[in-house]
């Protein structure tokens, strides 16, 4: 769906928003449509993506990991090598530039693992804007390295102590701020969620991932046979998938199964959720029998979210993309495996995609190729992994 004018992907998406935000959302859509194909805007964004963020990122053949799995060739799309250490900078540079064109002086953002917060703080620093970031209190503790980084980059971090104290609540609080400061403030949403036009805008800014994969794979052989990315809100996944949905590639999104889909402790919205309305969009949600949003769990803060981007809901229902999940235990295994075979420390979010790739590769032919988007690097996670290992691994 190129640009859904009604803001809907099938029945999903839309804009379920307080009336105060309507003029802001209309202003945003108007400006996005004005600038998205504007030559100067694209040139400026392209400059920052190349010279500042480090695009294009390599498509690395993970020979050791592939051999270990004993099946298909696994290629890693190295978004972890971007400035800031994750794919998030693709979107924050795009939106921060847009905000600048709109003469917005104040930027707010939400963050889960802190990667979007860091990427926002960086984009705002380089473009000379002020940023404030809402982050669940629980996440400020388990990802405190990123809190330090945001502070040093000049962003003000607001720990959110309401609700489950994670990404969902950070979004609530960012929306409340936006309602209060609607005239002066640009809300720089980091995931492919929220009211229209955010899901489509974030997808477009992240689509550089899939576009590069297409070109890079062509040089190697053909379009990939299988494409895999992790899904929380789903920004790196939609950026990977969208340019490839028209190819023959088999596409798999990987959600966080936490302690198992049968336990209450997971964040696998598409695998185990039902339709509903949250954060301005209609999409799949994890909710109870009366529509109250339930608490989620994942070892990775970035996937710890009870909703998902509406386009993923659409791709699930139309069966174009398969959505699987990986448990915390599988993720730790994948994290260690990639670290030890390739010397690459993946973010725990991205390790979900690696876990799936390892399963799929074993069942695939050697002639086949799997592309995995490695959405971020795992420096932020080493403390959490160490804690997990000392708790779970008996020597």
């Amino acid at each position, binding site marked *: 769906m190129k640009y859904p004018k009604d803001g809907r992907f099938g029945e999903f998406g*839309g804009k379920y928003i*307080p009336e*105060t935000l309507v003029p802001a959302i209309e202003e945003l859509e108007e400006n996005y449509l004005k600038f998205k194909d504007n030559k100067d805007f694209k040139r400026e964004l392209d400059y920052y993506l190349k010279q500042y963020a480090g695009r294009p990122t390599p498509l690395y053949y993970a020979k050791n990991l592939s051999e270990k799995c004993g099946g298909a060739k696994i290629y890693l799309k190295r978004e972890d090598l971007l400035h800031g250490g994750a794919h998030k900078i693709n979107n924050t540079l795009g939106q921060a530039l847009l905000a600048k064109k709109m003469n917005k002086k104040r930027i707010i953002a939400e963050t889960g693992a802190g990667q979007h917060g860091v990427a926002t703080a960086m984009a705002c620093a380089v473009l000379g804007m002020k940023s404030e970031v809402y982050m669940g209190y629980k996440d400020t503790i388990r990802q405190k390295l990123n809190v330090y980084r945001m502070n040093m980059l000049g962003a003000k971090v607001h720990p959110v102590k309401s609700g489950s104290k994670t990404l969902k609540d950070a979004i609530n609080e960012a929306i409340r701020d936006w*309602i209060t400061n609607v005239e002066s403030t640009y809300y720089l949403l980091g995931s492919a969620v929220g009211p229209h036009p955010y899901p489509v805008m974030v997808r477009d800014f992240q689509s550089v991932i899939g576009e590069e994969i297409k070109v890079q794979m062509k040089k190697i052989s053909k379009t990939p046979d299988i494409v895999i990315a992790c899904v929380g809100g789903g920004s790196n996944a939609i950026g990977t998938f969208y340019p490839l949905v028209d190819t023959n590639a088999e596409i798999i999104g990987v959600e966080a199964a936490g302690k198992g889909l049968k336990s209450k402790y997971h964040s696998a919205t598409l695998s185990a959720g039902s339709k509903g309305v949250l954060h301005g969009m209609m999409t799949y949600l994890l909710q109870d029998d009366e529509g109250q949003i339930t608490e989620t769990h994942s070892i990775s803060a970035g996937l710890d979210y009870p909703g998902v981007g509406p386009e993923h809901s659409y791709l699930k229902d139309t069966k174009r993309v398969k959505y699987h999940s990986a448990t915390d235990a599988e993720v730790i295994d994948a994290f260690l495996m990639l670290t030890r075979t390739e010397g690459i420390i993946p973010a725990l979010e991205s390790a979900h995609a690696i876990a799936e790739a390892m399963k799929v590769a074993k069942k695939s032919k050697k002639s086949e190729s799997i592309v995995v988007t490695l959405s971020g690097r795992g420096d932020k996670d080493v403390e959490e992994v160490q804690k997990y290992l000392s708790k779970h691994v008996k020597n």
Partner: protein
Amino acid sequence: MSRIKEKFAELSAKKEKALIAYIMVGYPNENATISAVRGLIKGGADIIELGFPFSDPLADGPIIQNASTVSLDNGTKLNKFFNIVKKIRKETDIPLILMTYTNILYHKGYSKFIVEAKNAGIDGFILPDMSIEESKEYLASAKNAADTIFLISPNTTKSRIERITKLSSGFLYLVAVYGTTGVKIGIQNYTLNAIKEVKKITKGKLPVGVGFGVSTPEDVKKYIKAGADAVIVGSAFLKLIEKTPQNKLESSIATFTKSLKRQTVQT
């Protein structure tokens, strides 16, 4: 004619404006809700908004957020909520409005939910995250069953206010200030101007109620003077409920309600 429309007609004949009171059902428990409602009626409230808690109340400030959490933690479910509404309905004919978020209705199915609510005694709905663009099924389900009260904001354009007015029934809810419920920034000139502008557009066909941050008799007086047909007070009642022991709740609420209601009676 709906209870809400009748109420506005009755008040208009008496040259009075409406005091609308909001409380969160189940905050901090069922007994408090019943006592608070009795106090509101005794004190002269004209319409009561009953909040049903939602896990993610993104248009609400800290006071209503906290009340939602407490109510949910105490086990407020829809069945219990509707039973409380039925109890209240047995005692009074006052118009009752259900305020909650879209997902609660969507999840059960708009039609099914609205029928059940109406049978319990609910006269209308306020859903702060329901925009007119997404309201087709909601409106069709509420038609001839309940009033649909939409919100407008001081930054809503004239043409949009016209569209929203057409889809609204009962009254039009003007959000007084940029912010969430319970916000404390005082009375703003832009709000007073907005009241006048909105009244020009509705031309008396639909009453205009002003809410968000309205908490004192002085606030009520100023908004009524600016032309509001109704004022909505919410967080201030919840604060009073929080600090008042159960045995004094009914009388304290009644006293506070009286002080607010007095300002809606033209002298």
